[in-house]
């Protein structure tokens, strides 16, 4: 039984590899950064479309953590993102006009770049609106974390998506390009997350947060998944299977302890709810390129988005990683 299951998962992994391989012609290299082959590099992998105003802070944030090279797929941006990225020395850039959806929401492109450039490196897979927070992030660079994970023989690191929002209505938010989004998105939900265990990939399925209570109250099952495993010491045999929610082989998803202890974990601060979400919603509703035919976007659209406001008297104001750790959203997991 166990053997057949692990063989099934192996076949599944091969299938994902094959899918990835079939999309190999989607991407055309625009430029390869200087440090793309640095054997000691810690890399970020990203797919994006029209994120120009978010990019300066995004790059700056991860450079500060010690990321040495960004591998970015530009899905046919029209807002100057590509030109901006091309001018960055630590960015390797690919361009594609192919469908985001048929590339399994970009994951096949990511798998492909990871396969080619990520092997033997610690690779962080994030979107432009996701900001990685880990224990000691304010004082220690990401290499301190990956070195520590290496000494513990850990290969993957979980970071739950934490939706951040402002106190004001969406239309009243004032955000300038390049600004730290969390100067305006200061709040989050601290204690309303549910998790299920036991999918075929062994990963947890975490839901909840402001989006569930605001948009999916009547169909909580459909609320977006918040569990992510963005940081992995990559090997060529690995594949992401569903966004960065799960990987194969299955053991990479077992990032939790079920014997009472806590493993180490972090959070991805999600800066999605900035004023431009409005344009995105209408664009994505037309493109239908996102999850479940843009279930989520439809839900946003049905709210009068200008008045969109997640804030309540029970919202928690973000301070630092220690706060998230104390709240139990992430864990130092023994790293002191």
């Amino acid at each position, binding site marked *: 039984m166990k053997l057949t299951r692990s063989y099934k998962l192996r076949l599944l992994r091969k299938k994902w590899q094959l899918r990835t391989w079939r999309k190999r012609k989607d991407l055309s290299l625009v430029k390869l950064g200087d440090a793309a082959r640095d054997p000691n590099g810690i890399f970020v992998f990203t797919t994006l479309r029209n994120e120009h105003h978010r990019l300066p802070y995004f790059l700056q944030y991860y450079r500060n953590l010690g990321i040495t090279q960004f591998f970015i797929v530009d899905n046919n941006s029209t807002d100057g993102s590509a030109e901006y990225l091309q001018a960055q020395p630590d960015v390797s850039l690919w361009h594609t006009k192919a469908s985001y959806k048929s590339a399994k929401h970009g994951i096949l492109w990511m798998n492909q770049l990871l396969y080619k450039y990520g092997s033997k490196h610690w690779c962080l897979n994030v979107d432009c609106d996701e900001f990685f927070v880990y*224990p*000691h992030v304010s*004082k*220690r*660079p990401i*290499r*301190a974390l990956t*070195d*520590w994970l290496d*000494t*513990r023989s850990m290969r993957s690191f*979980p*970071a*739950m998506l934490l939706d951040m929002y402002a106190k004001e209505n969406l239309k009243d938010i004032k955000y300038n390009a390049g600004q730290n989004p969390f100067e305006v998105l200061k709040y989050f*939900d*601290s*204690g*309303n*997350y*549910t*998790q*299920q*265990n036991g999918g075929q990939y062994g990963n*947890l399925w*975490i839901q909840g947060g*402001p989006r*569930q*209570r605001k948009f*999916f*109250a*009547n*169909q*909580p*099952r459909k609320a977006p998944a918040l569990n992510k495993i963005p940081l992995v010491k990559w090997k060529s045999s690995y594949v992401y299977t569903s966004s960065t929610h799960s990987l194969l082989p299955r053991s990479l998803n077992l*990032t*939790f*302890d*079920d*014997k*009472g*202890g*806590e*493993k*180490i*974990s972090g959070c991805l601060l999600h800066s999605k709810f900035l004023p431009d979400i409005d344009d995105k919603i209408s664009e994505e509703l037309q493109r239908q390129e996102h999850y479940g035919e843009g279930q989520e976007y439809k839900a946003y659209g049905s709210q009068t988005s200008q008045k969109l406001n997640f804030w*309540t*008297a*029970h*919202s*928690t104001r973000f301070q630092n990683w220690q706060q998230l750790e104390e*709240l*139990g*959203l*992430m*864990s*130092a*997991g*023994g*790293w*002191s």
Partner: protein
Amino acid sequence: MSIGIALLLHQDFDRAAELTHALLREGCKVAVHIDAKTPTIEMADYAKTFGDHPNLTLTNRIRCEWGMFSLVQAQLIAAEALLNRFPRVTHVVQLSGSCLPTRPISELKQFLAKNRGTDFIESVVAGQKNWIKGGLEAERFSLYFPFSWRKQRILFDGFVKIQRKLKISRKMPTGLEPHLGSQWWALCRETLTAILQDPKRRENDRYFSKCWIPDESYFQTLVRKHAKRIESRSLTFSRFDQQGNPMMFYNDHLEYLEHLEGFFVRKVWRNANMLYETLLSPEYTPDQRDREMRLTFAAQTERLEGRRNRGRAGLSMQSRVLKHRNNRSETAAPYSVLLGFDKTFVEIDSWLSKQINQPVHGDLFALGHAEMAQNARLSKGNLTGHGKIRDYAPLDFLTNFVWNNRKDPIIFQFWSVKKQRLFQFMANDPNANIHYIRYAWVPSLMQENITNMAVLKRRVAGFMEMERQRIDALSVGFANFKIYALADVLVQPASILYPLIEELAPKIETRPRILPKTVDWQGLEKFTNVLKNNGMNINLELAENARPQWHDNQSKPILIAE
């Protein structure tokens, strides 16, 4: 006098060079053993920076394997080289490339000059299970360990198992008693010489060469034979977590390091630039050691370190899954559950809340949405009382609710007939304090005026079955519980409510003068008589059952209600 440093290196030679330079600058004599696995180029680069420094000697090299005797050999080689080459060395301190001084070397010199003839080596009698974290203890000495734990794990484990089956038990050379301790010791010349020239050295070495992690036992055992005066502590501060992994030190530890015990610290992260710059600087002049700082450091470290093993009880999160082992449920804090009180008293929650001056929630699992205190729709942490979200994952709702309110008293009502699984969970939770009024459903059933006896019987049977399951669950579960008889509650409410208030708020001494109104129960006796006469075994004066019958005589449960 002068201090000799036996330095064992295997990686990060740029950092090691900085350390070596600083040690030489302070007048230490240094013997360096470099792991033979190191590429020659790296080694040459390292050696080149010292030229022909008179106080430095590079020893011949052997291949070192973690957990094996080769590490002890390297230590012996380096120590021997120091003693032979530098006759004025009085103490030898064992260091690695990832150690850093936390106090100026001059202070160490003064300290050792004051303690001539004393050996500083952690040396604890083996077999007391208090020194080793994660791993074998007595078996380190009694079994053979020819295989590398890191590279030949299967062989290693298999061989240990076989030896256990065969009851292998090696004998230690006579005159020795097994001791364990940190390998970062500082021994005086006399003791070290005695160990190196022990007449039984060959026998000792042969014995220890098949022990596991002998670098934590070789010197620690032999000093007990040769030393005059032992202080059983290491001059190098290091910490190990429960898995036996050494703690790393980073820039943010800087403010604490000078206050730690000892004169060195291990292991320092290779990129902790600030630590290297500060601690190796000739101008480094730390303050006096401050106990408060040391305690703060220990508390902070233990808190974060403890996460891995113990975790926080009742916390369900991305890297910790609640495991309800042996049917025992896990929540974060004690909470009180009232069952049947809202069916017997009018507006009990607001009355009770006033008496004990704490929020009392309504039925958190009521149909529709959670009835939280003050009609709130959201509670701490933005946990919503929305029925669909709550019912999507009711157990998560409960554990989240308890986690979010873990620092406050938690009191809520519960009834939902359909949520037996949830009740089961609470009945198995040592944190739950359950107050249960039996037959609390009877008055409201009476008010329904059901005339069709068949329907009434079916309803009654349903309630009784539910109640039987709940009482059974309580009687075998881990929760604290009290079961009250409906008759007592209605006739003498004070006898129930006073103790309840006392339990929920022990500090409040005044007894309430006004009791809550009970529900209308006129005709209850007649109603129950009707039920009884129709064959339903109802007894409103009954509180606690004897244990369910099948527990006593193992026969099948008898459903009395039918």
